[in-house]
């Protein structure tokens, strides 16, 4: 068992996990009841999955241009995904998106917003 083989297997594995997570994130997009929860799945699961795929690529090729770019790309995603989620969540809230499920246990933000008004 050469090192290359191990690396290949490892990267394949990470790739599969990554792909699976991306898929899961998107499934969440369908399954989740409201926009906030959908944000949770895409932002977290999706981003991690994508990051995983990038890592897998990096593992596969090493410090080749593809690998380095994959890493940079992963960092980009990690940097921007939460902000996008944040912006969308905020927008959804101000736009009055319903919670989808009525059992919102606590709504501090709504109160805060009302206080401001």
């Amino acid at each position: 068992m050469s090192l290359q083989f191990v690396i290949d297997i490892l990267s394949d594995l990470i790739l599969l996990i990554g792909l699976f997570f991306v898929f899961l994130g998107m499934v969440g997009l369908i399954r989740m009841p409201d926009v906030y929860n959908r944000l949770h799945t895409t932002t977290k699961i999706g981003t991690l999955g994508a990051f995983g795929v990038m890592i897998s690529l990096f593992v596969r090729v090493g410090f080749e241009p593809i690998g380095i770019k994959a890493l940079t790309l992963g960092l980009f995603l990690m940097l921007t995904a939460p902000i996008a989620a944040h912006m969308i969540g905020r927008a959804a809230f101000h736009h009055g998106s319903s919670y989808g499920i009525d059992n919102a246990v606590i709504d501090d933000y709504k109160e805060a917003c009302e206080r401001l008004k």
Partner: protein
Amino acid sequence: MTTLITQTIAKVVVPLCVFLSISLLLTGHDQPGGGFIGGVMFATAISLLYISFGLDDSKKFFNPDWSLYFGFGLLLATAAGIGSIIAGYNLLRTDYTYLQLPLFGEVELSSAIVFDIGVYLVVIGGLLFIFKKMGED
């Protein structure tokens, strides 16, 4: 105006975009990229700024007259073309050479880059001019 969080990230992402934009411009001759792509990337960076800080606040950071950008860009691109006439060729002839630079080693230098920078400036100026005009309206 958006939130503090967005703005802080914007401060990080904007130079990143600008950087990417310059990278795309300079390496366009050998890799994907070029004046247009770089220019749009730059415009995206600035529009990110406009989005996250709002047009009015962005003006505090800088408020260039974008029309000068596209004016100068077209001037540069055309001048690059006419330059080749002065050099004794037909319009828009390009040439290249390899330069030996200390530290950087052998660098390909193409005259087309001047033209591409013109393209870059026009794209930046034009798009941002439109954005700004429309945003102000």
